């Protein structure tokens, strides 16, 4: 096993309440720009129900993340919780699944952001430069300018992320604020000025009578992509000031905002436009919606383009931040090579992970441009990683209630059964069980209905597992067993570093009581 004799340079705690909120919002808020059209096209008039179904599972995921991220405020998110609860192997599997999402995040949102930027090109160049294409071998329609723009955007994000979390978090904060206002305006003015409840009701009734169940399932499984982002808050936990206090507040606010936005956009949208209109305009559903609002519609084109470009870029940035911190955490926990465990001496950011996984996102973008529709290809793969990772997080939440009842939980998921286990009282999470089944059902929907995702997703995880087994074998580490972790000592260090001294005292008291009950044995 490799030993770390040198003093580790840690990530600095720079993220504030607003920064933590916008970090998550930047990721989730952009998802609706891509998901709205896709979900309405699949679920037709039942799209609000599809969003609500996926959103209900998402709320439970959100509550689970809030509990775990405030209890274990370290970089890593879902993979760290799975590792604590289920061991190294499952921690790695969860990490691999979520990493797939983060790298697709970088790619899909950079592609989409560049697409919105191209909205302005006819006014400047007299033509849409995003449509300029070339042929290379069997690939006849590679949109070369759009591709180059996408790669430039990813390069820009790499630079600002290497320079430090303050700069990139600031970008999230500013853009997050603008987009919150703009999205709220579309919803508010849409309902007040243009919404026709009769149209909504007609489409709802028609869908109930005619929509096949598998189309609804496909739509609701796509809707889960509107809710991928809470992982980001827990990723930011190690860089958040007073995380035990901040994370529950930001997470709960984010859960509500995103849920209400997703259901509102689909409800207002289907009361203004027909579902067929959304299906014909998958690329810019929010712009189509804004354009149909009286008064606001006059400036709807540029308005929606700026809105889309900014929030999508912010979301892509969240992908860079999330993937780099996830892999940084995995390397620290002996799950991937320590070569990645390198902090920039000047900027204190995980420089190698930022570069490697942003380049992976760039590669995914490049490959997607070889297919007929880059956005379709990337979107199809998106939901698999999230649902697999979340399922493991729920299992970990339940297991950790039994394995680690001593760590203070600043927030605890509601609805618990008090049970006795090995002489101790444990809060059994009923909502955690429901959430686990809910997310597992969506994972089942993804495997059943996503043609690319059900192949590429598991293939990615299998390749990662092969890498993991080879790397662990080479380093003489247990393949399916666990490296020794002193979790108690680590928890003390984490709480000390986070300056959560009240929690630290509570934790040490709980351990002392346990040792006393066990006659001095831990």
């Amino acid at each position, binding site marked *: 096993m490799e030993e770390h004799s040198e003093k580790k340079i840690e990530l600095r705690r720079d993220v504030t309440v607003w920064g933590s909120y916008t970090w998550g919002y930047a990721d989730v808020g952009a998802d609706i720009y891509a998901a709205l059209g896709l979900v309405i096209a699949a679920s037709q008039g039942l799209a609000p*129900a599809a969003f609500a179904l996926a959103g209900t599972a998402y709320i439970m995921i959100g509550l689970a993340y809030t509990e775990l991220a405030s209890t274990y405020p370290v970089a890593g998110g879902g993979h760290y919780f799975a590792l604590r609860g289920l061991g190294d192997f499952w921690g790695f599997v969860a990490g691999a699944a979520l990493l797939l999402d983060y790298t697709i995040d970088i790619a899909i949102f950079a592609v989409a952001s560049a697409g919105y930027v191209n909205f302005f090109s006819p006014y400047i160049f007299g033509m849409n430069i995003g449509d300029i294409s070339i042929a290379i071998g069997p690939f006849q329609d590679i949109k070369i300018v759009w591709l180059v723009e996408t790669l430039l955007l990813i390069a820009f994000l790499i630079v600002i992320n290497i320079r430090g979390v303050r700069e990139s978090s600031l970008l999230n904060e500013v853009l997050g604020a603008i987009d919150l206002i703009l999205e709220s305006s579309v919803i508010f003015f849409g309902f007040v000025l243009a919404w026709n*409840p009769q149209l909504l*009701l007609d489409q*709802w009734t028609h869908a109930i009578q005619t929509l096949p169940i598998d189309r609804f399932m496909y739509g609701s499984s796509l809707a889960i992509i509107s809710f991928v982002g809470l992982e980001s808050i827990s990723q930011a936990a190690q860089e958040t000031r007073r995380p035990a206090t901040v994370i529950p507040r930001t997470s709960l606010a984010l859960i*509500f905002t995103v849920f209400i936005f997703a*259901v509102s956009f*689909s*409800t207002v949208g289907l*009361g203004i436009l027909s579902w067929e209109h959304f299906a014909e305009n998958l690329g810019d559903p929010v712009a189509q919606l804004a354009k149909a609002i009286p008064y606001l519609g006059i400036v709807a084109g540029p308005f929606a383009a700026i809105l889309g470009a900014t929030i999508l870029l912010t979301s892509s940035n969240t992908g860079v931040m999330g993937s780099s911190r996830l892999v940084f955490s995995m390397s620290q926990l002996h799950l991937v090579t320590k070569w990645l465990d390198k902090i920039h001496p000047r900027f204190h950011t995980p420089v190698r992970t930022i570069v490697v996984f942003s380049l992976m996102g760039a590669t995914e973008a490049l490959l997607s441009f070889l297919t007929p529709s880059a956005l379709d290809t990337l979107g199809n793969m998106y939901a698999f990683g999230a649902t697999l990772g979340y399922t493991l997080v729920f299992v970990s939440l339940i297991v950790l209630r039994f394995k680690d009842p001593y760590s203070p939980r600043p927030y605890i998921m509601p609805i618990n059964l008090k049970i006795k286990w090995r002489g101790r009282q444990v*809060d059994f999470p009923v909502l955690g069980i429901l959430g686990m089944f809910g997310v597992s059902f969506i994972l089942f929907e993804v495997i059943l209905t996503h043609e690319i995702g059900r192949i590429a997703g598991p293939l990615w995880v299998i390749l990662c597992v092969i890498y993991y087994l080879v790397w662990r074998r080479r380093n003489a580490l247990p393949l399916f067993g666990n490296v020794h972790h002193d979790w108690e000592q680590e928890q003390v260090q984490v709480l000390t570093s986070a300056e959560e001294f009240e929690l630290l005292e509570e934790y040490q008291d709980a351990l002392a009581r346990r040792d006393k009950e066990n006659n001095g044995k831990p």
Partner: protein
Amino acid sequence: MASRKLLPPTQFTLGDKYRLMLATLSIVLGSIILARTIPIAISPPAIVLGLAFIGFGAYRWWLGLTRLKQLKS
């Protein structure tokens, strides 16, 4: 495993005013949705959404007033 309460506020901030404004807007929007939907038909998504906006607004008002009371005391 007890949940932790926030510290009582020390001043009525701009953030508090923003939250109360947002709460008022939510109640207005929820009322508009319900007022326009109910005369036509009971449309499940619209009714649920209208009630959700009103509920959210009422909750934020309750939260704001609680903070004000804490501040005064």
